[in-house]
């Protein structure tokens, strides 16, 4: 657990970066600090490992006052990941990862073998170990950065916009893998981002800060989206928040209707009573929709080229947002529901999803 106890950072020129911050980052959870630039989120993070010293107030690491420890010893107990990874260009990947164990005097051989395990854990193949950072892409470097922060198995991790310098596709991948990793490791994490979508996706708890270092609201992502505390938070959380909040509402087991299908590679059926026919592969995984109004030559088979792939899928037990999106994105207007293994369960319509949304428990009064 990390506890900010009326922490203030005031610079000599009078600028207040963080103003009387009271915040608890619970053990084993991801606490995201989010806000516009100049809100003091990075300053708050860097005060935890005393890269910046607070002007007043105390930061507690479990029940120890961080100010009472030697800075380098404190920092070796805290994993630290920064925006561009900050890997050491003159060290191999494996030695980069083993940095903190080396500092702690761990036997070199053992430190390296732990580092190899961590590389695998963050999804890097073993032959990357002997490479140098300049040989890796930005996303790969960031994975090494995460592995390096984990190397000494610290209970606490600080992450300062770790995924914001990579392209959106890689970022999403890294976020997903990070969540999976956290499920196994259960670290106490403080994560800084300026991206509210990232905050809502990753955080168990999201702290919104406003310029001047004031804490505006601390809440779970769902609560933040549905009940922003004031106009600033509402504005920062942004548009579509009603729709995005559905991402936190599970749809339960969707009652679907069965859908006629055709297998890919089979002869093209003729004379259907519907405009759209769902194509599935051998494992009954939906492949796309077939437009029956289009004229096809006789004797043609169902090939990839004929399929309309616009529709998203919703997994049975997924969120209402995914269910609604599956309906809205489907050319036939019928959202495709699959099971955990990806095989077709049936379809559902937008009207049915809306009924589920309306049947949700009403907001509790405060």
């Amino acid at each position: 657990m990390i506890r900010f106890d009326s922490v203030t950072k005031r610079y000599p020129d009078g600028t207040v970066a963080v103003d009387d911050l009271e915040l608890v980052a619970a053990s084993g959870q991801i606490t995201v600090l989010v806000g516009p630039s100049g809100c003091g989120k990075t300053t708050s993070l860097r005060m935890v490992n005393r890269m910046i010293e607070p002007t007043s107030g105390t930061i507690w690491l479990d029940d120890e006052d961080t100010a009472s420890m030697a800075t380098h010893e404190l920092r070796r107990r805290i994993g630290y990941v920064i925006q561009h990874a900050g890997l050491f260009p003159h060290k191999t990947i494996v030695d980069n990862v083993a940095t903190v164990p080396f500092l702690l005097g761990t036997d070199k051989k053992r430190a390296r073998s732990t580092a190899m395990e961590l590389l695998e854990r963050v999804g890097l193949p073993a032959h990357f170990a002997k490479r140098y950072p300049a040989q890796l892409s930005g996303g790969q470097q960031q994975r090494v950065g995460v592995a390096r922060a984990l190397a000494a198995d610290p209970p606490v991790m600080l992450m300062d916009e770790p995924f914001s310098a990579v392209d959106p596709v890689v970022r999403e991948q890294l976020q997903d893998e990070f969540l999976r990793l956290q499920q196994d490791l259960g670290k106490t994490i403080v994560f800084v981002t300026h991206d509210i979508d990232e905050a809502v996706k990753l955080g168990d708890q999201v702290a919104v800060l406003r310029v001047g270092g004031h804490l505006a609201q601390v809440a779970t992502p769902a609560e933040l989206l549905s009940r922003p505390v004031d106009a600033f938070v509402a504005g920062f959380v942004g548009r579509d928040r009603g729709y995005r909040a559905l991402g936190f509402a599970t749809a339960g087991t969707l009652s679907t209707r069965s859908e006629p299908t055709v297998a890919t590679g089979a002869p093209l059926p003729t004379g259907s009573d519907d405009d759209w026919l769902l194509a599935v592969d051998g494992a009954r995984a939906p492949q796309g929709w077939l437009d029956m109004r289009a004229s096809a030559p006789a004797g043609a088979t169902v090939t990839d080229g004929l399929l309309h792939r616009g529709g998203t899928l919703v997994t049975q037990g997924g969120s209402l947002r995914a269910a609604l999106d599956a309906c809205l994105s489907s050319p036939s207007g019928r959202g495709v529901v699959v099971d955990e293994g990806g095989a077709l369960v049936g379809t559902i319509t937008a009207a049915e999803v809306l009924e589920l949304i309306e049947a949700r428990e009403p907001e509790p009064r405060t």
Partner: protein
Amino acid sequence: MATGGGDVIGDVVTWLTDPSHWTDTRFDTGIITQLLAHVRFCAMALLIALAIALPLGLFIGHTDRGRWLVAAANALRALPTVGVLVLLTVIISPQFQGRTDTGFLIPTVIVLVLLAVPPILANTFAGVQNVDPGVRDAASGMGMTGSQVLFRVELPISLPLIFSGVRSAALQLIATATVASYLPLGGLGRFIYDGLAQQDYPQMIGGGVLVAALALLTDLVLATVQRYVVSRGITGRYANERTAVPDSRLAVLPEAEVARG
């Protein structure tokens, strides 16, 4: 004109290849002795300059304090070498009487050190300053102490720039050490001064060729040391076959092979 030019080159080659010029005789000091003398004060000056400029550059770069020293050292380059040499000799050499050459050696080495310090200092400082702030931040954020950040991160990353400073200092030393022959100290400058005084141009040019050859050889030695000291992660000479960073030398090969095929 053409034959005249040919004659000069031929005469220089003759002077250089004459075995009697290489070893000492009763009347003349040979090339080998002068070469060793030349190397001696260059090496002394380089070592002293390194001992001064390297720690100072690392300190200024790491703490970002005392930047003015780098600028001040650079201003030293403007001093006229021969003038300073004569001045120092006039002051220092009377303190050393007798059969020793210390009275001349000290002023010479001081002059050379003054020349070698600025490039080493400026490059060491620049090397440390140019370390990616993110790398430095990560290093201390993971719990390295100040000196660990300096010696495990900043110094190794600065090595290419430090080496280029040392190499440029060494070249300048070897070229300038000829002024030592202005004093009765020897060195390869002896041949240049004597050749000029005796209008023995093959000897004069031969001396110049020897200085140039020594400079090239020294640079080659330092380049070889650099190759083995600087991390491959920084130079980009990776051992792996497949690299994410394209290597221009490799990129040319397939085309050449296509042309041949």
